């Protein structure tokens, strides 16, 4: 009686767990490691499948044996003293050899895959330098002289060799759908290479920092755009030169989600040049790659301001901005402490994947980056804003910017396509 009750209880707990997991499985899994899209990812997945198979067999057999023994040999009324066995050498040798035998089937493909995936990258691979910063990514294409941040474009079907270094602490580079991770270690250089599947349609992948690197480690994300070779060529052609300033008007942005609903900022539109390929502009965006982070409470921006990109350029060039950022084509702005902003207007996110790159979010970011993303080096710039690190209010004398000036800078940066 009592045993049956306990069995039912175990069973109902088990069912509950299975149900919950089944529910969870209904979600979309945009960062799964189970459906790789590169040769490197596939090599790992092959190993994983074998590991999972062997693991499942071992798990089922051993747990079944345990459950059988536990129920079969429970104490019953009138049990005699059980046999006082001390061991059995033959059996023990046998079950020492079994795991050794199983492990052989893991060891051989493991070593093979290690040497295969850690060989030198093929000649002619696309070189990309990845430099880790607290808490953003710098990407350089030495072949094309391109410097960008938090977003990489790579062509499908061509091997990409990432050269990994760090500017400060240790970070780790990981785009789960494209393969395994590799650390960015200060005073060291690491490499990792992969070839995106040549048959796939242009797509967008999430990337993460996976080595704890301080306060905003959780917000050190990046995007990988795998595009067709011709799209890549078009993107390269655009990125190589300085920004085509003010090429297109920015559509009126929708109010930001969350607490604050910043004003609409419409930069002036002028000139016309052919912009190169950019992913979010030329393709529907993938929802999982769009940040959904709400604006921190208490952030506000004056409604109804209109920014002017030319004024913005002047404000930018005489404000603190140029102490850290570089914009090719703007001789005042040549520092390389913060992300390179040359083609900032065509990027999808700000703050290393923290927020969408829309004027509404950008204005708040410039106003008080330290509230938008904890721990960042970028100072609080908005006049009368409270700087959470210095614990003081920003004044005019310290170079505080009013909302109109910020709107102008937003117009300028957004125009840098």
């Amino acid at each position, binding site marked *: 009686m009592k045993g049956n009750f306990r069995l039912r209880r175990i069973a109902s707990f088990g069912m509950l767990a299975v149900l919950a997991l089944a529910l969870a499985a209904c979600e979309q899994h945009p960062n799964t490691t189970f459906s790789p899209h590169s040769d490197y990812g596939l090599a790992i997945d092959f190993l994983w499948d074998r590991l999972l198979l062997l693991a499942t067999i071992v798990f089922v057999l051993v747990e079944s044996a345990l459950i059988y*023994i536990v129920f079969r040999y429970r*104490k019953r009324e009138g049990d005699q003293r059980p046999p006082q066995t001390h061991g059995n050498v033959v059996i023990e040798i046998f079950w020492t050899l079994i795991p050794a035998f199983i492990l052989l089937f893991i060891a051989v493909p493991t070593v093979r895959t*290690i040497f295969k995936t850690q060989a030198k990258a093929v000649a002619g691979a696309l070189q990309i330098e990845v430099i880790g910063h607290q808490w953003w990514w710098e990407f350089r294409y030495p072949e094309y002289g391109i410097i960008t941040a938090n977003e990489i474009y790579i062509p499908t079907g061509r091997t990409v060799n990432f050269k990994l270094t760090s500017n400060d602490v240790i970070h780790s580079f990981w785009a789960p759908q494209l393969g395994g991770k590799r650390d960015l270690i200060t005073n060291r250089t690491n490499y990792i290479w992969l070839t995106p599947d040549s048959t796939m349609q242009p797509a967008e992948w999430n990337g993460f920092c996976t080595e704890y690197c301080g306060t905003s480690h959780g917000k050190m994300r990046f995007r990988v755009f795998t595009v067709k070779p011709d799209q890549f060529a078009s993107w390269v052609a655009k990125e190589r030169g300085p920004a085509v300033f003010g090429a297109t008007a920015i559509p009126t942005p929708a109010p930001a989600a969350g607490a604050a609903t910043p004003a609409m900022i419409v930069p002036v539109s002028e000139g016309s040049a052919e912009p190169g390929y950019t992913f979010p502009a030329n393709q529907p965006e993938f929802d999982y790659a769009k940040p959904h982070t709400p604006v921190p409470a208490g952030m506000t921006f004056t409604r109804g301001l209109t920014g002017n990109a030319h004024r913005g350029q002047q404000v930018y060039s005489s404000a603190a901005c140029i102490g850290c950022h570089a914009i090719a084509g703007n001789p005042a702005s040549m520092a390389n402490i913060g992300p390179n902003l040359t083609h900032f207007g065509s990027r999808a996110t700000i703050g290393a994947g923290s927020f969408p790159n829309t004027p509404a979010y950008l204005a708040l970011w410039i106003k008080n980056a330290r509230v938008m993303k904890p721990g960042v080096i970028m100072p609080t710039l908005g006049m009368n804003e409270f700087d959470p690190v210095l614990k003081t209010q920003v004044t005019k004398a310290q170079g505080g910017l009013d909302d109109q000036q910020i709107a102008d800078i937003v117009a300028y940066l957004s125009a840098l396509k």
Partner: protein
Amino acid sequence: MASTAIPTQAAPHATAPYAEKSGVWSWLTTVDHKRIGLLYLYTALVFFIIGGLEAELLRIQLQGPNRHFVSAELYNQLFTMHGTTMIFLAVMPLSAAFFNFLIPLQIGARDVAFPRLNAFSYWVYLFGGIFITLPILFQVAPNGGWFGYVPLTTKAYSPGVNIDFWVIGLLVLGVSSLAAAFNFITTIINLRTPGMTLMRMPMFTWMSFVVMFMLILAFPVITIALVFLLFDRFFGTNFYTITAGADPLLWQHLFWIFGHPEVYILILPAFGLVSEVLPTYSGKPLFGYPVMVYSGILIGVLGFGVWAHHMFAVGLGPIADSVFALSTLLIGIPTGVKIFNWLATMAQGSIRYTTSMMFGIGLVALFIIGGISGIMHASPPADLQQTDTYFIVAHFHYVLFGGSIMGIFAGIYNYFPKITGRLMNEPLGRWHFWTNFVGMNLTFFPMHFSGMLGMPRRIYTYDAGQGWDSYNLISSIGAYILVVATLIFVYNFFMSRKRGAIAGPNPWNAGTLEWSIPSPPPEYNFAVLPYVTSRYPLWEGGEADAESARINSQEGRSAEELGIVLPYSTIKPLLVALGLIVMFSGLMITHALIFIGAAILVGSLYSWLLSPLEPEHH
């Protein structure tokens, strides 16, 4: 269980030696290994609850996407302190509670080899634990992760006092572990009762013996790493200074040469406890005793040759990766053998489902899962998709919660009657087991999925739409169940301490020496030192075993009456420990404290060494 039929009554005077010596002063000055064991037990349980609360706050934050229950800064402190607390302040000292209480009883000794050093170990642990834990109340707790990777933890990137607390705290705690390890090695080698050969020692003592050697080999390494960091932070040396060209891998190698053996330091005592529990409730001796000993030793030795499997992502090159992959796979063999031998111990037995046994079986069931996922990331390419994700969090919680903690609970339920003289409440115990078992699996099993679905570790929040929401919600629900489980345990523990049924010397009909004496044991443990002729003296021993057990279990006289010489109580070990912590905290507060602390330390140590341990023998 017939025990419930025994009417609750006050323990007879003779079997309650602790009642004679009460009051705070007696606890501050005790050198009795059993009382020190109790101090360890209570302190470690408090830290276990603190560490659990820290984890609870983490789970509240991660319950859903983009939550800001705690700030990024506080979250990072909480996960650092959760790991540090559970490893150094909860699980290791819980094992130490059993080392202290059980080892002398299991080998038939009247105390440890160095009773005052033993007290010193405890006080250093207590002061070090408080030192490293207090800052969380002021939100200046260590925030570099329990692994404290440089250069993040160097002054350049962590200028605050947070990491100072961590470095000094761990250095001090290391002193405690080392002192204890030397003490127990000496005890086990020298104080075994006649006939207690090494191959007759109970398995818990054996596994502890292995752990002691691991401690004295592993802790100097972390001490070196920490001293480098301390010197960098306080005196401007350049061991880890990036701008001076330091290689951050120096820290990683040193840390993991300590860090991986540390994992076995945490798990082997639990293996030992389960190797006592399973035979007791199956009514059979441990299956394959010699192989269990050898596999324990082998795990201990191999444990020092696998450290770089924590570093597969750092790019050590294909040869190093292959070597460490193979050595890691190799360690799976002795571990597998242990599990098979436990199964064989239970097979053909007559299994009694006490709470202790259920926790013991729980350890076997859950450790299998942790072991298997361990094999999965022993393969470096596969590991590169798993390391630093929640898959790893799932893995080591199956090993440390499913393994160590379940084993320790099995030990607590089994030895509570020996420690207190009273039985724990069995129905409540069963509630504790089931809530714990369900909560544990609900918390940690989904993490296998969230990890393989791309969720990195140590992130203070995550965005919506990443496919992790439901798994995290389930994990958090599981964590709430674990709170309930722990509350049941705490209630049961204190109620049973007061009102539990009287246990008698051997309530479980176990076979080893500690069950041949009254519960709780008298101050001197054994009235006559037993002569041992087998591994389970109470089950299969000869005439001599039975005779000494009969005398010891019925002895009611005091040490003086029996003419047994016991060491003096003394406050000096506490003062030396106090001097140590004052001296180190002077580094952070004011240098004057360094001299004051050193003066207390040297003065009380001098006086300790000049005072006799015990009255002269007549």
